[in-house]
């Protein structure tokens, strides 16, 4: 799909999000969460390019969310909290990345899982500070110094999420077509060759890992600003699994995939929960199974296939 078409689709999607959020107030929340998760999944997409699956990416989501929760008391300004949270996630991503980029495939996935489970345990353990599973409530925050309340605040976070989604989506798209992006994809198919071309695969992967951490950080900060309550469950391995789930649901073929997948996932979950409150998980599982078996390219693959056929 050409760059113009993709950009057009992205803007169309953004407009649709705004329209939906305006028409259906409760969807504002769901869509903001979807965009936030989409940002985290965009990072998963980067790692998937290199053929690596992180089963602990939720670590960075949780890290950022807790950064917002703790720093929110000191500087209750969304536009400071968000970059701060992304920075913290990115820095921790750098420290952990230096270690995990030496591993591939299941070891990469499991090490990430282990580290996120350790963080989960730490959040539970230091309950005197974190209140454990009860979580931390985030007080009201300002936007550019403006104290917004109720609906205005929801719109502000949604707007922020949209801007970040479009921005990071564009950045990732550009980067994936750069020599770095193609080398990243080369890690998946022929890592050895990169070495013999003078390229350090670990450094290539590390850049992706740190970027993915920072994006997950943005996602986590947005989730914290939206739900205004953070719990250790954000770091649990099933949250990471959910992110990978969304990546595949949306399709790894385009930067729009993660957002498409996240929206589809959140809406499916909400409607499944409304329809069959005690078996929504089964519905989601069946949807995922259907997508994998019948549309391995994900929802994005379906769209492009439909266009080709038309």
């Amino acid at each position: 799909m050409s760059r113009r078409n993709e950009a057009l689709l992205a803007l169309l999607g953004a407009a649709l999000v705004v329209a939906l959020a305006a028409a259906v107030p409760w969807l504002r929340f769901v869509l903001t969460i979807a965009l936030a998760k989409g940002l985290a999944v965009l990072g998963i997409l980067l790692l998937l390019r290199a053929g690596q699956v992180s089963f602990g990416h939720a670590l960075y989501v949780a890290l950022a969310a807790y950064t917002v929760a703790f720093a929110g008391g000191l500087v209750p300004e969304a536009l400071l909290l968000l970059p701060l949270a992304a920075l913290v996630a990115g820095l921790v991503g750098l420290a952990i990345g230096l270690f995990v980029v030496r591993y591939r495939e299941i070891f990469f996935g499991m090490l990430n899982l282990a580290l996120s489970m350790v963080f989960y345990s730490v959040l539970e353990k230091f309950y005197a500070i974190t209140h454990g599973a009860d979580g931390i409530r985030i007080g009201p925050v300002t936007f550019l110094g403006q104290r917004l309340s109720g609906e205005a605040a929801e719109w502000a976070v949604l707007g922020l999420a949209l801007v970040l989604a479009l921005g990071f989506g564009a950045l990732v798209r550009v980067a994936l077509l750069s020599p770095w992006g193609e080398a990243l994809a080369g890690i998946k198919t022929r890592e050895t060759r990169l070495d013999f071309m003078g390229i350090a695969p670990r450094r290539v992967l590390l850049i992706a890992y740190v970027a993915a951490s920072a994006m997950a950080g943005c996602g986590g900060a947005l989730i914290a600003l939206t739900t205004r309550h953070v719990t250790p469950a954000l770091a649990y391995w099933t949250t990471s699994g959910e992110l990978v789930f969304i990546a595949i649901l949306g399709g790894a073929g385009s930067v729009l995939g993660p957002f498409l997948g996240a929206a589809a996932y959140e809406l499916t979950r909400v409607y499944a929960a409304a329809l069959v409150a005690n078996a929504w998980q089964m519905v989601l599982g069946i949807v995922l199974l259907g997508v994998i078996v019948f549309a391995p390219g994900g929802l994005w693959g379906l769209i492009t296939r439909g266009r080709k056929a038309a």
Partner: protein
Amino acid sequence: MVGGGDHARAALTRRAALGALGVGGLALSGRSVQAQGAKPAEIKVGIATYLSGPASVFGVPGRQTAEMLFDEINAAGGIAGIKVRPIFVDEGPGVDHVVGEYRRLVQSEGVHLVFAAISSADCIACAPLADELKRPTLLWDCGTQRIFEDNRYAYAFRTQANATPEILAALLYLLKVKPDFKSIAVINQDYAWGRDSWDIFRTAMNTLKPGVKISAELFPRFGATDFSTEITRVLALRPEVVLSTSWGGDLDTLIRQASDRKLFDRSTFVMPLAESSLQRVGKALPAGQIVGARGDHWFLHPSPEDPKRLAQFTDTYRSRFNAYPIYPCFHMAQAVSAMKAGVEKAVAAKGGGWPTDAELAAAFKGLRFPSPTASVTIREDGQGLENQLIGTTLHSDRFPFPVLTDMVVFPAETITTPVGQKSADWLKTLTPEMVAKVPAAQAFQ
């Protein structure tokens, strides 16, 4: 499922509408402001409960009770002549899901009340939402005392006690029946409740009986399946008392593994939540252990306010679900009862008209409503005043599981943190007279 058909149809239509993606077809927003004050066709109640995960051992009985009681209310003509309909949402997926569902319940389903929730995290997240979206919300089962001690809410009310009286009652009972114990170990689940409840217990114990030796503080992982190391350690340390505030599958497993290893022969267990496990573990739990029920809930309550009410509740539940009701059933019954009393009070205050959300919320302040065993009063800060019943296990031929004897019913006012105080501070001001004033025990009959 009560009203399930309508509910499912409504959801389907919404999905069809969303599928069409025509913004015009998306008139999904909830009750409009104009509708305020008009008498609704039905009272819709959103109920957050655990339908998946380990806590569904409480969530599903809670849901069953709600279905049963909503049926009863509708059979009797509804509340103030209006039928009621529950809409259940699952707490299993976590706080962000519940917060989203809360918004959907209010903004899309247009519920008149919300019952939230079992998880303390969900309650902490939902209480501010209640004020933000201005929808009366009854906290029906969560335990954390932080909610009304740290904040004030105009729309959120708790229809039961909280962790402080629940744990304090167990400690007072222990001090009454075993005043000379010198050592204690704790085996609690490693998460907020396990830690918080131990904090409350320890703080109060250090105030009322300083110098007790704490032999071990063990916090196995939430959902742990193997307690043998913990049990071995406690067997070796031989503390006189073992406290565990665990619940659900964890508590069942702990009781059974402790029983298999004869730990009950060496130490007396204090289990403030074990009433909910009695029917499942059966007589694996020996006599002589101290058991609580997070309230005065016990289907064999020795002195219920209205014996007929308790008997009817127990029998109906038992005939429908083939089990005796456990504490989440009673908590749900209290929420339903509070809803009924609150709506009736608000409607009466309006001279038969339908109240606004604010008027309905205001009706809950100071509300006194009947529970299956007694009455509960909602204090000015939103906290419910609920009595606590603690007893000792006894094996009787009449039941295939242990029953309670030497039951003490603690009046709520004596053990609940006063309005405006924090539990952590209040517990440090307790005096030994409190133990002396513990009401007389009542035997199993």
